[in-house]
């Protein structure tokens, strides 16, 4: 999971994530590092400041195909989306 450090995740967060996530999904993430990285980067570049928190909570969502992942967020006005996600990341469940 070292690849997560490229996106600003610290080692403690990564260790905590590995310790508290199902192995099957961790294996899927490891198999799809490039895809997961692309999806994380999309949120980061969109301007979502708490993208790390979103990943640590909804990591399996980042296994989506990249274009489908982008489509989920592209439907909304970016600034409004960023504000709402900053207030409460559970908004993701309803997108």
């Amino acid at each position: 999971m070292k690849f997560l450090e490229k996106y600003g995740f610290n080692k403690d967060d990564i260790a905590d994530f590995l310790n508290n996530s199902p192995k099957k999904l961790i294996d899927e993430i490891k198999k799809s590092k490039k895809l997961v990285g692309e999806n994380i980067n999309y949120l980061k570049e969109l301007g979502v400041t708490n993208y790390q928190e979103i990943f640590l909570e909804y990591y399996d969502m980042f296994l989506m195909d990249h274009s489908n992942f982008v489509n989920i967020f592209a439907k909304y006005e970016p600034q409004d989306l960023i504000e709402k996600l900053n207030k409460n990341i559970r908004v993701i469940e309803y997108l």
Partner: protein
Amino acid sequence: MEFVDINKTLDRLNFNEEERKRTIEKFYVTLQHVDLEVLDYITNKGVDIKRGHELKALTMPLSDIKKDFDFIEAIHEAGLYVEKPLRLCLNPVDIYKRIGYCNANGIQYKDENGKYELFLFNRNLWQEVLKNRGLGEEVSSPTPAEDFNLEPFVPSDLPKEEPVLEEVAPSSESHEEEVKEEPKVIENDLYSPDVVPEIDGLKEINIGDAHHDNTLLDHSLTDIGAEPTVDEVMNEYSKVEAATTDFQSIRADLEKQLNALNDLGHDIDFSKYDDMNPSVYEAESRGR
């Protein structure tokens, strides 16, 4: 990946149409790994999966889920899974440690509605709690048992094979190894070259003197930190001392005890007691 009929899973979940659609869109990979036996088990425990992102819990091995439930039920906190199924993915030992810490320090870990505070389940939030109390960062699990600083928990009804806590490492694992080692073979000769210098060093002490509590063996055992087995040896020695004034008998008994200590693997250096002037001895013992 083996084809998995996700519709079968979705039918079992009773999601509404909107949630079903969102789940397929966002959590398709997770759906591939859902174990319906886990779903049956947790449903019987009163845990409902209501949202797509909670499906992660159903990808855990059933054996782990059962262990976690057993553990959490043993500490009477099964409500935390009912409240939020995703907590099944968390390490229950971390949660237990935090609950224990809260109990020990009078921190409320449930709000006024009886819901568990989020800091129990989030490392960063928990760090804030510790910082507010002026303590250092939490050590991530799994931790050595010596890092525990919580009220002891005795899971009397927990299955014996459950690794509730890491076993406390024995204070001296090497001691166990020493005990198991083959005993050193020492020639059964009171006057063998290895033993004579040590025994000769005993000459100046009046071992039979009842006023002398500070015997050679006593000091040596104090030096090395007497262990129960050696205390037993000392008890035996005291009995011998009381029973006989015969110097040779006492000497023979001391020899046996020295051998017993060597058998335990102690490499005791008695050479400093070569000068067995009792006054030197007394001075040394007062210096401790």
